[in-house]
């Protein structure tokens, strides 16, 4: 992780300390030509504001939706996106790669 991703974690901490609900989404696995490497992060608050990226724009919208669920339930989840995935046809990766994203709440 370099400066960019690191600033994102600093923001996550600030947001949480300011009383906002926060979730962190992390790319944990990639196949094919995925746009962002393993370890890339997206930080999301309870109102859907976000920082960072997990795909360079292709699936961030869907990850934010998952993050809002995780904030609500408190339970972490692993979500996958790619051309083989039914939902991914709507929000998929145009490059043809696949990624798994781990979404967790900051408690």
């Amino acid at each position, binding site marked *: *992780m*370099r*400066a960019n991703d*690191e600033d994102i*974690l*600093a923001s*996550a*901490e600030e947001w*949480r*300390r300011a009383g906002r609900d926060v979730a*962190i989404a*992390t790319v*944990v*696995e990639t196949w094919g030509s995925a746009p962002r*490497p*393993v*370890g890339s992060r997206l930080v999301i608050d309870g109102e859907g504001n976000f920082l960072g990226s997990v795909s360079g724009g292709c699936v961030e919208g869907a990850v934010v939706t998952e993050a809002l669920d995780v904030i609500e339930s408190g*339970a*972490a989840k*692993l979500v996958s996106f790619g051309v083989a995935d039914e939902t991914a046809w709507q929000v998929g990766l145009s490059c043809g790669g696949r990624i*798994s994203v*781990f979404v*967790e*709440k*900051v*408690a």
Partner: protein
Amino acid sequence: MKLETLAALNAARRARRAALLVTSIADGTERLVDPAALATDPLAAHLDLALRTGKSALVEEGDAQYFISVQTPPLRILCVGAVHISQALVPMARQLGHDVIIVDPRTAFATPERFPDVPLYAEWPDAIIPELGIDRYTAVVLLTHDPKIDDPALHIALRSDSFYIGALGSRKTHAKRVERLEAAGFSAESIARIHAPIGLNIGAVSPAEIALSILGEITASLRLKPDGSRA
């Protein structure tokens, strides 16, 4: 992720310390691993690889999946010698994403005109380097050719965790350097850490080519295992 864990990661980064976080994919439980004490960890081999390469990874242990998140400080190149090669090295190192610091007590060399926008210390290495600190993410590059300046820096570097130590000079120059280091009490094993003559053998002639060969050697030290295979 617990807020305490997040705070610990952020604190480690501010202090230029590496951090390793292991998260269970099944239930989201997590633990921070001390990079200095990972040998006894059940995931030791995976953790060691992540720390060395700086790459986070999903790993399997038995039936369980864990995500190892590694956070390493930016690499730093401590250049002793504000010389022509260092001038060529600065922009190339930046392209690679490395920070550069220049130390040279000779004020005619260490000028802001020659090194704009670079942390530049016109001081003796033994006076300033202990303050700057050399950690395992710091490469030390000795380029003055002058034992009065290079040797004190080398003494400090050899006692540090630096991942790369290189010294400019011919084989003959290096043989004399080795004699001086032996006389100063350094072991053969310790002296063998020095890359000399410095840089990959690419037939480099110009300052820019020598800088390229040095940065190639630094990259190899970072990315390859000791046996030369890809990490």
